C-alpha cells in the first residue's frame, strides 16, 4: 500500500514522521509531502526519512497526478486549508475523469472537550478521520449526531502522534525535573513571569536537583528574539538565577524526557509521552480546570497536584502512575492502530 502524509507545520511534520514509522511496520510505503516552509525542519529527520519526502506546496500536490499513484493520502494541514485541499483534489480528479483518492485526517493530539470539537469541525467530510481513542470516538459521535456528517467514517488508532518507544537511555546521574513549557499556557508575559519565579524558587529549594525548563515549541536561535511570554526570556533576564535552573531547546526534548527523573507541565502533550513511559509525572493543578489551558485534557489523569505539594521533589519519585482507565480510553489501549488504519483505507480504496 502506498500512502502520502501531507504536513505544513512543524508539529504536523513530527506527527506524520511518527505515523509513517508505525505504518512502515504495517507494510505501508509512505511518502511525506512537506510544505516548502518546513524544509529546515525536515533536515532534522533521519536520512532515510528525508529520502522518502517531497518538498512541495500541499495544494499543488492535491491537484497533481502524483496522487493517482497512491492508494490514499493523510492530510494534516492547518485547519483552514483542509477544505481547500479536499475540494482541489476532488475537482482535479473529476477533470481527469477519475475518482478522487481516499483522504484521511485527524487531530494531531488526543484533545478533548472544546479543543477537540474545534479541531474536528474542519475535518468533517474527509473520507476517514483518524482518532486517538474511545474518548475522541464518543465526542465525534456527539458532534455529528443527526447532522449531515452523521455517517462520518472514523478509526481509533491509538496515541499515533505520541513518541512512546523507548530510546534506550538511562536517567541522568543527577536528579532532574523536566518542566514542559507550552508557548501559550499561560499566555501572558505576567503569568509567565510568575511561573518563572515559582520554578526559580523550586530550584533554590531543591539544591540536589536540576530543574530544566524545557519549551515544547521552537525558540528562535537568536536569544534577542525571545519573547517575554517565554520562560527562556525570564531565564535569560534573571541575574540571580540558580545554577540548577537550566534551559533546554526543543531538539533536546526527547532526550531530556528520557533522562528526566520526573516531568512536570500544565497541559503539554509531552506529558502523555512521559506517562506512557512510566516516568513520574505531575500535571500542575494550580490553575484549576480551565478550558483555555486545556485543563479538561488531564482532569482524569490522577496526576494533578499543586506545585506547593511537589516539595521535596523526592516525593515525586514515589507518585502513583497515571489513571489506567483514563489513559486506556485516551488511546493507550489500542495496540494495532497502524493495522486498523491500513484496513480502513484499503476498504475505502476498493
Amino acid at each position: 500500500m502506498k500512502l502520502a502524509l501531507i504536513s505544513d507545520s512543524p508539529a504536523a511534520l513530527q506527527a506524520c514522521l511518527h505515523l509513517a514509522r508505525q505504518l512502515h511496520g504495517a507494510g505501508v510505503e509512505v511518502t511525506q509531502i512537506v510544505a516548502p516552509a518546513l524544509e529546515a525542519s525536515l533536515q532534522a529527520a533521519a536520512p532515510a526519512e528525508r529520502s522518502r519526502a517531497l518538498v512541495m506546496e500541499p495544494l499543488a500536490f492535491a491537484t497533481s497526478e502524483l496522487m493517482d499513484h497512491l492508494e490514499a493520502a493523510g492530510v494534516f494541514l492547518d485547519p483552514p486549508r483542509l477544505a481547500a485541499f479536499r475540494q482541489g483534489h476532488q475537482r482535479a480528479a473529476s477533470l481527469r475523469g477519475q475518482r478522487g483518492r481516499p483522504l484521511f485526517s485527524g487531530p494531531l493530539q488526543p484533545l478533548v472537550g472544546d479543543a477537540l470539537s474545534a479541531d474536528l469541525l474542519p475535518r468533517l467530510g474527509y473520507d476517514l478521520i483518524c482518532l486517538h481513542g474511545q474518548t475522541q470516538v464518543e465526542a465525534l459521535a456527539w458532534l455529528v449526531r443527526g447532522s449531515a456528517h452523521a455517517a462520518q467514517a472514523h478509526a481509533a488508532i491509538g496515541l499515533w502522534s505520541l513518541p512512546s518507544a523507548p530510546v534506550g537511555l538511562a536517567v541522568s546521574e543527577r536528579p532532574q525535573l523536566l518542566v514542559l513549557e507550552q508557548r501559550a499556557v499561560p499566555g501572558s508575559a505576567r503569568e509567565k513571569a510568575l511561573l518563572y519565579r515559582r520554578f526559580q524558587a523550586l530550584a533554590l529549594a531543591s539544591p540536589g536537583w536540576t530543574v530544566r525548563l524545557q519549551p515544547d515549541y521552537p525558540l528562535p536561535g537568536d536569544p534577542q528574539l525571545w519573547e517575554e511570554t517565554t520562560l527562556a526570556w525570564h531565564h535569560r533576564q534573571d541575574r540571580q538565577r540558580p545554577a540548577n535552573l537550566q534551559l533546554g531547546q526543543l531538539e533536546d526534548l526527547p532526550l531530556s524526557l528520557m533522562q528526566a527523573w520526573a516531568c512536570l507541565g500544565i497541559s503539554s502533550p509531552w506529558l502523555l509521552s512521559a506517562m506512557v513511559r512510566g516516568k513520574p509525572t505531575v500535571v500542575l493543578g494550580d490553575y484549576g480546570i480551565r478550558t483555555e489551558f486545556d485543563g479538561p485534557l488531564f482532569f482524569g489523569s490522577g496526576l494533578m497536584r499543586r506545585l506547593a505539594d511537589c516539595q521535596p521533589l523526592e516525593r515525586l519519585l514515589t507518585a502513583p502512575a497515571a489513571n489506567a482507565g483514563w489513559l486506556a480510553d485516551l488511546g493507550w489501549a489500542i495496540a494495532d492502530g497502524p493495522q486498523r488504519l491500513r484496513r480502513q483505507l484499503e476498504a475505502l480504496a476498493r
Partner: protein
Amino acid sequence: MTLKLLLVADSDSQLLAAQALAQGAGAGRAAITVNAVPREGTPAAVLEALERQGELWRQSLRQLLNEPRLDGFDAIGVYLTGSKLAEFRSVYLASRRQLGRPTRPLFCGFNGVVLERFEEAIAWRLGYDLICLNGPRDQARLELMLRHTPFAGQRSVLTGLNRQRGVEPQGGRLNRLVFAEQVVMPAEAAERRRLVRSLAALARRSPDWEVLIKPRVAPHESTFHTVETHIDQTLVEALGSPPANLRISYEPLAALLASSRVMATVSSTAFFDALDLGCKPVVLADFGLRHDLGTPFFAGSGVLRQLESAADLESLAAGPDPDPDWLEWVGYHPRFTAENLLEALEQLATEAGPAEPVLQHPGYVINAAELATNQLRRAAEAALGRRDLEEAVRLLEIAQLQRPDHRNIARRLAAMRIANPIARRLALLVTPRFRA
C-alpha cells in the same frame, strides 16, 4: 409533599434559568422563593416577572447566609457563575457548621444550552448534591469526564430545555421574523455588520413580512458578557437607514415569539423558547459550523438555514421542523422537566442528611476544591510569595466570607489591602501568616 425551595441567582441569564425552573416545578409540588442577588444593570423586566410569579427576595450572599429563614427550606438551588457557585457551596456549608445548624441539599444547573466550557463548568459544580443537566447529551459528556475518576458518583438529573409555558398553536400569527440577538455570537464587529446586512436584505426580499431584531439587553442593561457595540449601533453603522420593515424591538421575547411565525438565531437558547411558544425556529448557517459561534450544538437540529441565500421569509417559514431525535438528545422532551428535580430531591430527603462531599482526592484537582478555608489561606500566602497581591486578596476575601469572625484572616487581609507598598510590607511582616 410540597417542597420548599430557595433559588439563588444573580445575573439576568441565571435569573431567567431560576424563573424557568420555578415555572416548570408544578404548583402544589413545590413552593419556590427566588433570591435575586442585587447586581447593577439587572433588567427590571426580569425582576418584575419573578415578582409576579412568586416570592422574591433581594439579599446579598452575605445577608442570605445570616437569614434565619434559610433553614426553613427543603433544598437550595444555586444559579451563579462558576466561582461563585463553588464559593456559595463552601461558605454555606461552613456557616451551617459554625452555627450548628443542619445543611440542606444543594443543587445547581445551567442557564440554557451549554455551548462551550462544559468540563470547566462541571469542575466548578462538583460537590453539589445534584447537578441539573439539560438532556442526554450533557449527561453523556458528564459521564465521560468523570469516568474512572473518584467523582464518578456525582449525582445529576435531567431537567430539560422547556422554559416557557407551552401555548396552543394559533392561526393568527404575524408574518414576522424575530431575530434573537446574542451579544458575542458573533463577536467580530465585521461579522455583526454582515449579519445585520443579511437580515436587511431578507427583509427587502420579503416586503409582506416584518423583521424584528430583539437585542439580548437594552443599551443600559448588562448581561454576563460585556457589550462593546450595542446592536442598535451596529444597525446604524451597517445600514445607515434600514428598510421600513426591519426594526429593533425591546418587547419581551416571549410576547414576540407568541405572535410571530419565525424565529432566527445564531445559537441562542431562545431557540427552545420559540418551540415552546409555537414559533418556527431556524439557525443561521451563514457563518458555518464554528465553535466560537456555538453553532456545532445545532448541527443535528435539521433547521440550519443560509439567510443570505434564502429566497424570502416565506420559504424559511415553509422549511422543516427540528429533528425530534435531536431535540430529545439535547434535552427538549416532555420527559426532561423540573419534576425530575423534585423527585430527586424527595429521594434525597429519604436518605440520611446530605453528607459533606469529599472533594480532595490525591491526583485530582477541581475548581471548587481550593475553597476550604485553610486551603484558601495557604493559597493566598503562596500567591503573596510570588508577588501576586491581587490573587492573594481575592483568596483571602473568600476565606473571610467563610470565617468572618476570624481575627487573623481579617488582619492579614487588611495588611494586604494597604496601598502604600512600604506600609504594606511592614504590615505583612507583623501580621500572622498562615502556617499549616
